[in-house]
């Protein structure tokens, strides 16, 4: 009887230890932190207006097409979703915004393997990260897949290099766009700031 009791206590301790060990597994640290009121900080380097709830952080571990951003799935049939990102290496090489815009659209969204006849809807000069920038709104439609995308791209400068912020909003061909996502994006790039120099600025 005594032996059975000892074994039961031992088993209990082992289960407790296993559970405790499981709880103690370190969580993966998120690079997203709270900054000043209403602001978020990513990777201790980028500060911007915190997107409202529902926007999920997306980031590329290495060698991707963009740095980081936020996305949400929108109501409606596939492919209803919105995503905006900050990209330190936008497609192209030109250091002037107008030239970069032309290069950018040669390859923009090529990985979607869609026939997107992108049409520029609006192009205007803006102020971004304390300097002059260029904002372009464009829309593309794929009549074969019956999908469309509206996008806004903002080109700015970080040191000597062109950087960009862009939003893509996908819809079925008969879907309606959600302007609220564009407002969130405008707050994102409009509030964007750098907390330290870029790698290239330190060379």
């Amino acid at each position, binding site marked *: 009887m005594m032996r059975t009791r000892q074994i039961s206590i031992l088993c209990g301790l082992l289960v407790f230890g296993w559970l405790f060990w499981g709880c103690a597994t370190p969580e993966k640290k998120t690079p997203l932190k709270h900054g000043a009121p209403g602001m978020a900080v990513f990777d201790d380097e980028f500060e911007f207006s915190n997107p409202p709830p529902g926007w999920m952080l997306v980031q590329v571990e290495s060698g991707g097409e963009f740095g980081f951003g936020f996305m949400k799935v929108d109501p409606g049939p596939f492919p209803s979703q919105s995503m905006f990102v900050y990209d330190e290496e936008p497609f192209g*090489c030109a250091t002037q915004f107008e030239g970069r815009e032309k290069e950018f659209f040669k390859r923009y969204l090529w990985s979607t393997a869609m026939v997107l006849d992108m049409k520029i809807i609006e192009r205007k000069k803006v102020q971004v990260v304390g300097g002059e920038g260029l904002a372009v709104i464009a829309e593309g439609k794929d009549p074969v897949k019956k999908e469309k995308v509206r996008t806004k791209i903002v080109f700015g400068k970080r040191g000597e290099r062109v950087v960009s912020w862009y939003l893509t909003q996908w819809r079925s061909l008969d879907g309606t766009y959600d302007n609220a996502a564009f407002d969130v994006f405008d707050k994102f790039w409009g509030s964007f700031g750098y907390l330290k120099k870029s790698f290239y600025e330190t*060379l």
Partner: protein
Amino acid sequence: MEGHQRNLYLYDRFNARVTGVSVDDVTTLKYWGKDLDLTFPLLSNVTGFLGDSFGVVPSSEIKGYPVFSRRTVIIDKMGIIRYAKDGSPDFKEILLFLKKLNQEGGK
């Protein structure tokens, strides 16, 4: 290649020049370079002898077609290979290496 084009001003700062080498023919490279707005030289090496010189073995991924494996090579002014790395270029590593090489005395 686009990444190299973006970094040209930094390569200039570190007294470095960049050249692309491919087994594609001249006409293909001409149009490809124009499409990407590249301003640095692209060398057509259809026989692949430069690949042997720099240890770029034919890729095993595409059978029956002569393509180089991707490799970045940095050669100093004396013609000595100082850096070689396979795969996509690590631009930050390349820039730091060129900076160090330049600081060593303009090598």
